[in-house]
């Protein structure tokens, strides 16, 4: 099974339990990267080291924190997107998936899996650029 994208199923009920706080002073969220052979998907419930890319350059196991910004509502849609892109330099690996998860949460609960075509980075910089934070493209949207 390959990596596949989507909001994590477990996250949907965790939101209803108030387990995630995306506000500026809320929880800390991280992005971790995975090999093309990993099996990250909407059924992933928490951060896992299985299938994660190896430490390289500035990438270290568990990935990197994103910068929160206040969730907002535009029209009828609530949305949230990290306020800055995430980049790792001097890295060498091949990846096709990033997992957003709650690093503050004791169980490191997952939020969403982001996928793209397999990308090989060679002694270079890998940048994950966030979409525009609005009601049509924001990273996490409640419609």
């Amino acid at each position, binding site marked *: 099974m390959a990596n596949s*994208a*989507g*909001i994590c199923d477990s996250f*949907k009920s965790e939101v209803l339990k108030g387990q995630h706080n995306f506000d500026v002073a809320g929880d800390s969220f991280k992005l971790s990267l995975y090999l093309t052979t990993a099996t990250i998907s909407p059924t992933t419930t928490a951060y896992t080291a299985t299938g994660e890319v190896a430490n390289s350059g500035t990438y270290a196991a568990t990935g990197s924190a994103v910068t929160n910004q206040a969730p907002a509502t535009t029209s009828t*849609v609530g*949305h949230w*997107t990290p306020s800055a892109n995430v980049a790792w330099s001097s890295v060498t690996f091949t990846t096709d998936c990033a997992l957003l998860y709650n690093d503050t949460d004791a169980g490191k609960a997952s939020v*969403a899996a*982001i*996928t*793209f*075509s397999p*990308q*090989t*980075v*060679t*002694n*270079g*910089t*890998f*940048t*994950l*650029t*966030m*979409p525009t934070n609005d009601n*049509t*493209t*924001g*990273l*996490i*949207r*409640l*419609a």
Partner: protein
Amino acid sequence: MLHNGVECEEFRETYVDEPTAIINAKEYLVGGEIIRRDVEVQVKEGFTFLGETGNG
């Protein structure tokens, strides 16, 4: 020669528009070998969950 501050003989840049992301790759080559490859994944759109309720 220098490309973006990297000493190399050849520089290639590609953009690939995928359904969920735009991929921008920059390759620096010496002797036909890639000595450095930078990749930017521009996420086009995130995820929506919770649809309209049917209790209306």
